[in-house]
């Protein structure tokens, strides 16, 4: 633990870094090869952010406990009216309150 960096760890970190950078440039490289974007691909690309981000929320809702479910529901309602930070605070406060008072 006195070393700054072990060789094994360096391999894993750089492997993860290269794999991640590959994902960040390959969409660009793919699109550059196509002159015109067909309408269906355009529709697909438009759906990317919502489709991806939903997969980070829905399983967390289903797998989460009561406080996570309620916090996400409250945040969803708050998010329709408020910006991100108040939304985060509302959901966080609800989750902490349920954990301390109910569970």
């Amino acid at each position, binding site marked *: *633990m006195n*070393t*700054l*960096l072990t060789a094994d*760890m360096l391999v*894993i*970190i*750089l492997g*993860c*870094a290269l*794999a*991640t*950078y*590959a*994902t*960040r*440039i*390959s*969409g*660009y490289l*793919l*699109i550059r090869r196509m002159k015109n974007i067909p*309408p*269906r*691909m*355009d*529709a*697909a*690309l*438009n*759906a*990317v*952010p*919502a*489709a*991806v*981000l*939903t*997969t*980070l*929320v*829905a*399983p*967390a*809702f*289903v*797998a989460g406990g009561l*406080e996570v479910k309620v*916090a*996400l529901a409250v*945040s969803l309602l708050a*998010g329709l009216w408020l910006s*991100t*930070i108040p*939304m*985060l605070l509302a*959901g*966080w406060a609800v*989750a*902490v309150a349920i954990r301390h008072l109910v569970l």
Partner: protein
Amino acid sequence: MSRSEFGDGVAKAVPVIISASPFAVLFGAIAVANGLTVFEAGLTSATVFAGASQLVGIELFGNHVPAWLIILSVFAVNFRHVLYSAALTPLIEHFSLGQKAATLFLLTDPQFAESLKRREIGKQVTFSWYMGLGLPIFVAWVAMTLVGAFFGKLIGDPARFGLDVLLPIYFMALVLGFRRRSNFLPVVAVSAVASVIAHKTVGSPWHVSIGAIAGVLAAALMPPPVKRKPDEEAHSLEAGQ
């Protein structure tokens, strides 16, 4: 002009930094708890720079999963960047090759969401604006990782302070940002159902890629309701201001 563009970007970076910092601290703390040095934790944040995948990776590392499987899992969680970079390409065509390389390195969920939002209100995504948004997020991400690594023991169990619920809420806020798009509800519904089923059957982290592909396919297979013309939308918005 370019200075105010950079400043515009920095202003957008502030809420991102506030909401992402707990996860950087969390990553630093877990990394050290799982046997990484402070330097290794910081190096990971500086070279990978992708929060969800870093947390998945360090979790697997702590469970002594083989290196190739850790790298493959990080790739799976980050697969969404393939789709992000494809969608970002038309917005950054005017950048030089070096600028594009830097731009794509800094491509994260909020960076992508903010870039598309800026395009949709009719403003150009300039390199200055993009860096104004991305560089402070990058510096804060690495700095807060080091803070977490140094003071990890003070945090203790992250769930005790409710920090664990911030991540899904934050991602939900990003989802809501796209709610005015065509096909929003069917895409979200398909992705939600597919990712939940995949989460229960195939398991994490594959539910991310499987759910995303299902939602994107649904959008591609649906008849286009109204032909989107981003340029016209942008101009009419600008004229209306």
